[in-house]
């Protein structure tokens, strides 16, 4: 049953035929996380950990990783966009990007990793998305029943948060040396917030930003799912 549920929520990662397992690719060139996808301010401190863990995952698969810093990633992508626009083919931006990178670096494929923030539906504090199941953490949960009229807080304390909440996923795009998109995948990471019940008697809980940079196990799971089946997840 548990296996069935996990399979049901698997993301629809898209891979070009013949690329499962990344055959013939030894050296990856990686753009800084969220080069083109907006990253909310509260998650800016998380990208350092994401780099480390993606790096570790590639090494685990016996691949080499070379990273671009954010300034260069953005500058080169902007130049590629401008060149593509000039030719009237914005959708060819990755090809211009890859061509420019090929002039500057040695690599077999390009990876653009990102952290995505999106809404998921939580029921009793639990939610499943992009291949993972997570339970939202309740901070300062009252040790005793809250009492009085605060039935809403009581319900949260007993069952957890129910409603739309923000969650993060790892997203990866892989391009060939010539800019052909060969893989796109995503894997669930974690809730953005914990629910803090320190003020439970005021009829509510407050969302507190989680220390996502420190949630290494969840991040590793998300990375492995996001790369599967390009660089397959190992049980």
């Amino acid at each position: 049953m548990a296996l069935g549920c996990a399979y049901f929520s698997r993301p629809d990662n898209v891979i070009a035929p013949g690329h499962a397992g990344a055959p013939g690719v030894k050296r990856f060139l990686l753009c800084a996380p969220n080069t083109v996808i907006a990253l909310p301010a509260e998650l800016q401190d998380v990208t350092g950990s994401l780099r480390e863990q993606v790096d570790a995952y590639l090494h685990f698969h016996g691949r080499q990783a070379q990273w671009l810093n954010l300034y260069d990633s953005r500058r080169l992508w902007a130049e590629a966009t401008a060149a593509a626009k000039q030719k009237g083919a914005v959708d060819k931006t990755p090809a211009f990007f890859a061509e420019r990178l090929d002039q500057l670096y040695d690599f077999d494929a390009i990876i653009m990793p990102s952290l995505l923030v999106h809404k998921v539906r939580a029921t009793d504090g639990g939610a499943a998305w992009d291949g993972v199941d997570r339970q939202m953490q309740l901070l300062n949960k009252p040790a005793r029943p809250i009492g009085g009229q605060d039935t809403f807080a009581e319900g949260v304390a007993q069952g957890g948060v129910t409603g739309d909440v923000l969650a993060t996923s790892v997203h990866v795009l892989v391009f060939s040396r010539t800019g052909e998109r060969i893989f796109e995948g995503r894997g669930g990471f974690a809730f953005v917030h914990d629910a803090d019940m320190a003020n439970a008697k005021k009829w509510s809980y407050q969302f507190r930003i989680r220390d996502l940079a420190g949630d290494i196990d969840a991040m590793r799971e998300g990375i492995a799912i996001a790369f599967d089946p390009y660089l397959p997840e190992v049980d």
Partner: protein
Amino acid sequence: MRPRATALALVVLCVIGCAGPRLARPALDGWHSVSVNDIRIIANGTAEETRALARDLAGFDAAFAFLIGRQIPATGPTTIALIRDSGLKHRFRLDRGTLGYAFTTLDGSLSCVGLDHPGQTRHVLLHEYTHLLLARHHDARVPRWYNEGLASFFETLAYRDGALVVGAITSDRLVGVVKRKPMPLAKMFGGDREATLRGQLISDFYATSWALIHYLMQTPKGRRELSRFERELAKGTPLEQAREAAFARPFPQLDSELAVHIGYLAHGVAAVSVLDPKQIAIAEPPAAVPVPRGEVARELGAIALALGEESADEAEDDGGISSLASELLGIAVAEDPTSARAGAALARARALDGDADGSGEAIAAALRAAPGDVQVQLAAGRVALAAQDDGEAQARFRSAIALDERSPSAWYGLGRALARAGDAKSALEAFTRARRLGWSSPLDLELGRLLVAARRADEARALLQPLAADPHGGAIGKKAAELLEELDAPAEP
């Protein structure tokens, strides 16, 4: 035995009286400090944490100068205290939703920020620091939307993946501005408190302020416009003319440009400024050094004292801050009994705390130890003011002026003593002299009050309008608004 001991302890506490729980000894241990770009950071954290905060501030200064096109020079020393200890935070009122605050006195700029989750601390620190920077424009009527919008824009500055990123958007802000739609800019630019800061309008006002700054910061043209706007204000151009000169287009056009920008943000476009740290001049802060307990007590005591004196002037203090100042400065004196300045500061704090005898003893000792120290003479003047001894206060402030005629605090103190004694003309002269040498909102209020009484309406408005428009103006802002109303009231026949 245990219940009896507890009861006894409670009785003792009640008898000695306490405006707040006494500081736990470890609260003043383990502090570090570092200076960068004339700013002193003193933090209740490790050397690494403290230096990282200094690095954030240095990055901020460089990014601000790069994006705005110039630096706003310092007008006095700046001290920022970052507090982790929960008891100390509570005593400094860093609780109940207040994560930090900043204020400017004649002796320098001060800020207190709670030291929590690194990202949150950085946001609050940079937000408050932006306010301090803009407060350096002493003669400008910096509008509330600009002040808050710029602070919200720069608060998310961060080093990430080898670059300096400015203008990242928090999820809440994005949801707010997309769902609620921006406030019409004509209203944001020209609306009074009633039209902009009531109910849900408050969040619309803040979100729109941020969104407009965010939009303009994305292009060199927009940055030039913002820079021009601030320059015009700094040289005293009236608000409406400054807007015309800087943005040179009607409100509906600006409204529609902003709506397009918000549409991009809603679609997840990474609209941030990414700067290469190698290409902008970022000062490298030195290693943070440990701060002895007495020095921590002196620095924090000085902040509490400044906060308490400002609050006392406006009847905002319930006694908690003045008692904290007394306690901290008492520790500073105990740790270094030879410091006349610490003794003089303790005397001020005790005066503020209503301990006239203790204050008198402390100031007498400080004057015996260092009669030629301008800070000691200034403190003696303030103690005399608190004791309603206007003659003694005048004498002490005149002594301070004789030691340093460029001390704005000495001229301000003299002005207050003269005003109290009923010599409005001489008080006005002394305040005017102080205003040429420094700036603080209480000084502008006092000067504005005398100008209103003298029916010098234009000069009074120039001083009082920025105070009334200050988003964090508190009681001073309200009093300035009342004086402006008085000024606008028809003269009695």
